């Protein structure tokens, strides 16, 4: 009996203590700290060392590019570290005028020399920055990075004076302001980086909490692997007076069920991703808190066009027409949108829709390719990684079987082998995807050129590349997009990739968070976010 009483006593104590305690979100609302589910652990926070989206979310709060992210719209170019900018008529020379009041978080002034230093560090062959291609717009940047040009003076970026930065580009880039919002274009503080090592040192103490200095709205205050990254308000930020948050805590939760549970238990303000099978439940139970924003991501089946059979356009088209995309997106990929071309919504860019579900046509094409009713069709396998793509692959497998009478195996691999197999063209079909870095078709189309490290299909087309080239040198923004639309049509007519869905950002957002409209690139500037009780 005594034991029983003890147990009851213990539980009531726990209960009472916990009932009185406010949730972490309520406390954070009081302290004005935003609790963000960030999807995973960042590999590093030095903007020159990383390539991921997860890192980008944190880095964007620590640094600010020439052009800032706008809270309301992706297409508005808001002044950031630069106050104004201008360009020559053919978009090949740009001048950015920096804010004279711009400060690093240690109080030093942000100058054009910091930007030049930053691009020098990123482009230097010894730094070996993995995402360096984002800077190849600059004249001689690629040559310098490949060691063909040794003198950085010849690279097309100059500090005219402390607050004037000039770029010479290798081709017209009318969308350059949008590109400078990407973290590869952010400045790093020359004086701080150099105090912890040489310019080209890859991992030094400068990017650690306490040492790291940035020009963004927030400063890194604490980082514990797989636990949290905390940033606090930067008092030296030029717009600090209008920053409402005192800080942001990023929680690298990889398991989206755990993340959703944490949100529902009041441990998070916003989640990274809702698991598809919970979408219906959340739509019904939390209609005000579920957010389904469009996102610039595309999912597709990558074909290895060097394989006999798959080298025929008709076979690839047959596989494509046999996929019921709408049904796929209504069931397993809840929240996603059925793709009718490769690129998702990018504003004015509207390529012709060519994809569709047409089993009769699929069958006919397969017969024309020499496999009537699937007879004699090679036994291909569909490569998938170890993530949550098994259901999609099984659905595709069944659709191909039902509509074409062909058997495709599913080959699940660990992520390392999965990536390598694609790069070595050691696969038949692979489930893959791509997320755009900025709002321009180039972020989706350039990768399909010959020899590009992200192509991995064996496919290339001279006509396609000519079109891309033509568009790149076209100075009329609208015409340029029309040429890209034609290029995408060509890509879809050849179908080296079979797109089936456009990604969506489906997540939960606490009603206490204000200043969070849907954004295609999902870069919500924390400087504009407010918390209300």
């Amino acid at each position, binding site marked *: 009996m005594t034991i029983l009483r003890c147990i009851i006593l213990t539980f009531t104590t726990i209960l009472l203590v916990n009932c009185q305690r406010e949730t972490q979100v309520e406390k954070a609302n009081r302290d004005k700290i935003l609790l963000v589910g960030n999807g995973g652990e960042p590999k590093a926070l030095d903007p020159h060392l990383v390539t991921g989206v997860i890192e980008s979310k944190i880095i964007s709060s620590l640094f600010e590019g020439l052009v800032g992210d706008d809270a309301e719209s992706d297409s508005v170019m808001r002044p950031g570290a630069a106050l104004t900018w201008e360009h020559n008529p053919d978009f090949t020379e740009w001048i950015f005028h920096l804010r004279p009041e711009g400060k690093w978080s240690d109080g030093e002034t942000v100058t054009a020399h910091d930007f030049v230093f930053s691009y020098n560090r990123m482009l230097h062959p010894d730094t070996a920055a993995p995402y360096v291609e984002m800077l190849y717009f600059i004249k001689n940047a690629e040559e310098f990075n490949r060691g063909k040009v040794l003198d950085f003076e010849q690279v097309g970026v100059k500090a005219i004076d402390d607050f004037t930065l000039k770029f010479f580009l290798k081709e017209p880039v009318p969308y350059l302001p949008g590109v400078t919002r990407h973290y590869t274009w952010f400045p790093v503080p020359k004086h701080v980086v150099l105090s912890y090592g040489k310019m080209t040192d890859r991992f030094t103490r400068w990017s650690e909490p306490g040492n790291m200095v940035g020009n963004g709205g927030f400063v890194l205050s604490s980082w514990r692997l797989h636990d949290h990254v905390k940033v606090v308000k930067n008092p030296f930020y030029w717009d600090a007076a209008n920053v409402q948050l005192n800080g942001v805590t990023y929680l690298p939760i990889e398991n989206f069920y755990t993340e959703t549970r944490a949100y529902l238990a009041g441990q998070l303000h916003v989640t990274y991703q809702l*698991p598809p099978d*919970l979408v219906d*439940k959340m739509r019904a139970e939390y209609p005000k808190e579920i957010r389904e924003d469009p996102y610039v991501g595309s999912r597709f089946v990558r074909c290895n066009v060097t394989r006999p059979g798959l080298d025929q356009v008709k076979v690839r088209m047959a596989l494509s027409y046999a996929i019921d995309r709408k*049904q796929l997106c209504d*069931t397993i990929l809840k929240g996603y949108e059925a793709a009718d071309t490769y690129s998702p919504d990018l504003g004015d860019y509207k390529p012709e829709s060519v994809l569709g579900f047409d089993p009769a046509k699929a069958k006919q094409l397969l017969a024309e390719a020499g496999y009537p009713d699937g007879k004699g069709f090679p036994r291909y396998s569909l490569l998938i990684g170890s993530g949550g793509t098994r259901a999609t692959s099984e659905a595709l*497998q069944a659709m191909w079987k039902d509509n074409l009478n062909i058997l495709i195996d*599913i080959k*699940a691999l660990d992520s390392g082998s999965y990536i390598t197999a694609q790069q070595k063209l050691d696969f038949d079909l692979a489930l893959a995807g791509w997320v755009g870095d900025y709002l321009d078709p180039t972020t989706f189309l350039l990768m399909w050129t010959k020899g590009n490290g992200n192509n991995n299909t064996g496919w290339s087309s001279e006509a396609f590349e000519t079109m891309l080239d033509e568009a790149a040198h076209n100075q009329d923004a609208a015409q340029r997009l029309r040429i890209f639309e034609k290029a995408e049509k060509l890509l879809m007519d050849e179908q080296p990739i079979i797109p089936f869905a456009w990604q969506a950002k489906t997540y939960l957002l606490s009603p206490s968070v204000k200043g969070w409209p849907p954004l295609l690139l999902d870069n919500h500037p924390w400087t504009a976010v407010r918390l209300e009780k």
Partner: protein
Amino acid sequence: MAEKIEKGISLWSDAFQRLKKNRAAVVSLFLLAIIMSSCIILPMIPGFLIDPNLQNLMLENLSPSSAHYFGTDHLGRDIFSRLMFGGRISIAVGLITTMVSVFIGVIWGALAGYVNRKLDALMMRIVDILFAMPFLIVVILLRTVLEPKTTQLTDWVVNLIVTDGASVERINTVRTAVEPLCSLIPLFIAIGMLSWLTISRIVRAQVQTVKKLEYVEAARSLGLGNVAILFRHILPNSIGPIVVYTTLTIPSVMLFEAVLSFLGMGVKPPNSSWGVLIEEGASRMFSNPMQLVFPSVFFSLTLLSLNFLGDGLRDALDPKSSKD
């Protein structure tokens, strides 16, 4: 008269008599028989079960009904059929790999426990090393090495069964029958390699305890050989922990199969196993709990029965327990 008594106490019938008295064991045997025979027989009856891989996205996540006894999964496939077909694979994986691992583990542990100290040290240090090996790397390497071999093996087995002039249809039927089993062989090797370590440690500890007991000394002084002592006197006295550990290995092996399946080594999609059904059900437990409950119940019932049957068998086979 004398003959009758002789028969009455023969080891097996005696054991069976005792087993019959153990209610838990009898119920377990009955349950096991039902589950295993339905997994084996039901899929063989043409038209009785819905095709387990027949997918209908319009019918996703249905509740149990007369059309689908256990409802449908996230791809609209019949869960009851998938459980029955998956049970075949899980039971095969569970039994075969456990047998392999218990066999290796018992021999290794018994030898290490019985032989001289130097050899014992070497054998147990090998176990230490294998314990600490990163299993995921071993699995990836095994998969890379063995995967091409399984295709060859399948071809070889198909050629063995099918005569030269057979039709394409016949070859394909044989192939679909043979393939799932052949593709599991790397899995058997991987799990067999990795799961015998703990049991070898337990058997070694038992053997070391038992070999110092009086009756073993007695047997030795009677001039019995080492092998005879080990297998006739020492191992039978360690049977309890071995049986128990065997019944403990089966569930962990069955679940391990699912982990490996997601790394491309176990059962290939769209086919299923209980482990895969449980893993997939677990990820949807808060939207469609029934998709987890049914496979878990089958899985737990089978293993519970196996466990109580194991205990019952151990008691029945243990000559000493009859004297209690």
